[in-house]
């Protein structure tokens, strides 16, 4: 947990925190235990890709648009320059780590 807070850029002297749904974390622990590492790697890759796809080339954005259209019924996704970009490029390149 201390490593987590350190990576978050928070003080490592944090000694208490709230857990809003303790049963979820108990379930998560069991799920992590029962899931193969290769699946977790793919899951993390997917988390990175799905969060950054709107900032990536057309070959990423188009499938995202198709899904959004199906999911929300919105026919037009805002142009790229209106999409708020807060994710550093280093993170996108870090995808290869997973």
């Amino acid at each position, binding site marked *: 947990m201390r*490593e987590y807070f350190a990576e978050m850029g928070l003080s490592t002297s944090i*000694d208490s925190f709230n*857990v809003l749904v*303790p049963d979820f974390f108990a379930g998560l622990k069991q799920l992590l235990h029962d899931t193969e590492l290769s699946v977790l790697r793919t899951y993390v890759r997917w988390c990175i890709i*799905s969060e*950054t796809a709107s900032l990536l080339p057309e070959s990423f954005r188009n499938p995202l648009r198709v899904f959004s259209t199906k999911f929300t019924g919105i026919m037009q996704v805002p142009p790229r320059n209106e999409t708020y970009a807060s994710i*550093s490029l280093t993170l996108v390149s870090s995808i290869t780590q997973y």
Partner: protein
Amino acid sequence: MSQTGFLHHNGIPAFFDFGVGADFKRPEYNIAELDQGGLGLPDRDYYLNTDGDTLEIQDAYKLLMETLLAQVEPASTDLHQRVAAVFRFEKGLAEVSLSRTAVTSRISITSTRARYVLTSDASVAHGIVGWLVG
């Protein structure tokens, strides 16, 4: 845990959510808080419901996952199976998540939340603590 910290620090949600909220013990202070999360679809019902509309969305979601992963792994031939496995993992997260109704009402249900102290909770028998502390 440090890997998850790296992801969360860079705005990538995975496994669970992080936030800041009023300390359950001292409400005049804000402290870190951990919440359920890690789902790609917006609500656990999209994983658990079995009606036609939901199944259609699940299929579209899996297709999106496979299409985008194929962009970064053009040589992979087992993406279909891997996507199915990731979906099963997310469905597992959904199964242990509270429903939206329960989340809305939990603010008044103290039994569904807890406050942990890192230095002393290693002995607490709850499943999370042994994993979080370390």
